[in-house]
């Protein structure tokens, strides 16, 4: 907001930088949330909590949208089995890193260090990505979609099955926990802070917060810090994926998206390139799943339903497929407006007025005709906002498809090259000699 008062040129130049766009968007989102929090009447503790939750979802949706952007935005691979790769990631990590079971009733793990488990999660997701890709990538795009969504459901049912609930490897009892899920006795944040010696900062923050928000400040501060850590990981994903996008490899990906046959005709082995891109994206999705759930205490297979996949798709579509900056922004907007927003709105309304919601739809609609009273209907809507969230998302999607199919930034030209294409290279001043098309040594002509 403040840069509006600056000179037009500076503001324009700043706005041209992508990190500024993202930061400005985040600033607006946080400002709105803090204002809403004040309106609801949150204490400081509540404010920090809600900001921490919001940051968490901005982080995870940013991460997942970026990974999906590699598949869909760059390569045109229609992966609607994202959630399956997330589940593979977190479950592999759990099995590898959980400590061995102490009692017979517990399902244990292999007890490897946390980072080994995370790496194993990524590798497992990539390998399963390869298995999915091998038959499907050779076929038309829509077959990949069918295969991936089927795959994600197969993963979920496998996790649910009793067969894999518990089994023995050597003298260890490990397993996937079946329908009752797995406990995740991890504290990734603490491990990370301890390793990086950032726990000094953590202690300082807790010490600072304790007098203001009272006892147990570390829980609030930790969830806030985890959110911040996720944002840092978003930044890392962003840098890695942008680097890939701006390279000859990224150029081949884009070309495959546009026209695979033409790309083959130019001598590019598209099957290999597609498989690489797919596996890398799957690994990033696996890591995304790990980061999403590793600090949640427990996981159950039914968390990984296809709806999560579609949330990530909506985030990417809002941001604009093909743009990494757009993916991050889409993740943020989705998390703030569509995922957390309605719940927040519900809180706001409930704090402002006494919501006396009817218990069923008939009770909500009847008063409109009986006494022209719409309040029961509105209350009913507010009360059921979590269910209606999906309807909102559908409406937003329809609106986007009609009015802005390329999302916030999908229309942008983001050149796929590791050098700037905007100006011709120095030394290439005249075209008078007509230039010769390279083959016979274009350099020699100068």
């Amino acid at each position, binding site marked *: 907001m403040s840069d509006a008062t600056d000179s037009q040129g500076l503001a324009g130049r700043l706005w041209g930088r992508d990190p500024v766009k993202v930061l400005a968007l985040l600033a607006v989102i946080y400002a709105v949330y803090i204002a809403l929090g004040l309106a609801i009447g949150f204490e400081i503790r509540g404010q920090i909590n809600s900001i921490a939750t919001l940051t968490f979802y901005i982080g995870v949706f940013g991460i997942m949208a970026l990974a999906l952007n590699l598949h869909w935005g760059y390569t045109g691979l229609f992966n609607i089995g994202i959630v399956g790769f997330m589940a593979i990631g977190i479950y592999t990590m759990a099995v590898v890193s959980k400590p061995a079971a102490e009692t017979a009733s517990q399902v244990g793990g292999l007890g490897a260090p946390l980072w080994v488990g995370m790496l194993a999660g990524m590798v497992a997701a990539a390998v399963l990505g390869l298995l999915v890709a091998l038959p499907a990538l050779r076929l038309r795009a829509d077959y990949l979609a069918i295969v991936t969504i089927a795959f994600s459901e197969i993963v979920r049912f496998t996790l649910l099955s009793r067969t894999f609930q518990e089994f023995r490897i050597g003298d260890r009892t490990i397993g996937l926990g079946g329908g009752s899920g797995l406990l995740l006795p991890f504290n990734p944040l603490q491990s990370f802070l301890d390793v990086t010696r950032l726990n000094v900062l953590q202690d300082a923050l807790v010490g600072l917060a304790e007098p203001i928000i009272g006892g147990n400040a570390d829980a609030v501060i930790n969830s806030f810090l985890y959110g911040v850590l996720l944002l840092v990981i978003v930044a890392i994903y962003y840098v890695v994926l942008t680097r890939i996008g701006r390279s*000859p490899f990224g150029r081949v990906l884009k070309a495959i998206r546009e026209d695979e046959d033409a790309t083959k005709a130019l001598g*590019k082995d598209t099957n290999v390139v597609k498989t690489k891109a797919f596996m890398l994206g799957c690994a990033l999705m696996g890591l995304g799943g790990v980061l999403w759930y590793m600090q949640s205490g427990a996981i159950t297979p039914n968390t990984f339903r296809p709806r999560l996949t579609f949330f990530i798709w909506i985030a990417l579509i809002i941001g604009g497929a093909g743009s990494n900056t757009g993916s991050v922004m889409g993740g943020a907007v989705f998390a703030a407006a569509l995922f957390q927003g309605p719940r927040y709105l519900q809180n706001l309304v409930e704090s402002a007025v006494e919501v006396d919601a009817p218990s069923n739809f008939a009770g909500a609609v009847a008063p409109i005709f009986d006494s022209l009273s719409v309040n029961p209907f509105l209350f009913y809507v507010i009360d059921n906002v979590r269910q209606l969230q999906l309807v909102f998302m559908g409406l937003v999607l329809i609106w986007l498809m009609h009015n802005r199919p390329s999302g916030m930034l999908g229309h942008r030209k983001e050149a796929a090259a590791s050098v700037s294409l905007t100006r011709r*290279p120095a030394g290439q001043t005249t075209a008078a000699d007509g*230039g*010769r*098309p390279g*083959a016979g040594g274009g350099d020699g002509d100068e």
Partner: protein
Amino acid sequence: MSDTEVETDPEPSASGAMRDSGAVEGETGPEELADVSLRIENLRKEFGGIVAVDDASFAVESGTITGLIGPNGAGKSTTFNCVTGVYEPTAGTVYFEGEDITGLAPHAVANKGLVRTFQIARELREMTVLENLMLAPKGQRGEALWRSLLPFFRNEVVEQETEILERCWETLDFFEIDHLADEYAKNLSGGQRKLLELARALLTDPEMLLLDEPFAGVNPSLEERLLTHIHDLQEEGYTFLIVEHDMDLIMQHCERIIVMHQGKVLTEGTPADIRSDEEVIEAYLGGEV
């Protein structure tokens, strides 16, 4: 009725046109071509019960512009697709520069130096003209994922990219489309797309170019430019095989012409031979002279 006309034709070329007529006249038999770039032997492609290419054999001499003509359904495009690996031939062999390339994948064929363009221009729509061109060069180190990602190797990639970019600008100048460099390929006119496709194919450093109807939908002035470019490139040593419907154009600009009809090679020879070949006139013009 038209059959009988051919049968009763007194000229000897009628019966054995496929191989003999050329040989009889001297310099044109496939085996006698000085330096063969592409040779196809008994190429056959069946789709179910339909024989699209029926034991076609021909050769293209290095450094020539050779035309491949024939009425619709003659099997020209199928032949192209078999040569470039899009289809796997049912039988027969394709040699390029003396090497058997039958059944190689399309990208492998292109990397051998045999590069095609498409009948309907296949520009990469949502990429700029410059990006389209920069995709083409062979042996780009940055096409390996790890090299374009890891910091130390990245410099190497950037260095090569700078060279490639310069070559692309030179090519843009050569084709006089440098003003379109930053335009999305989808915004180009039909003719400009054909130029772009030719430019892109050239940047792969091919030995030989297969152009599938490069002049279809191109206005006369652009067509003139395309032809000038093709002749210039021929002088630099490129070999061309061009599928085209426009008889006059082929007659004027090709040194040798191969005529296909119903999946078979009807005849091959110089434009003068073809012009006087009754069978060709029969097949191509439906008997009217």
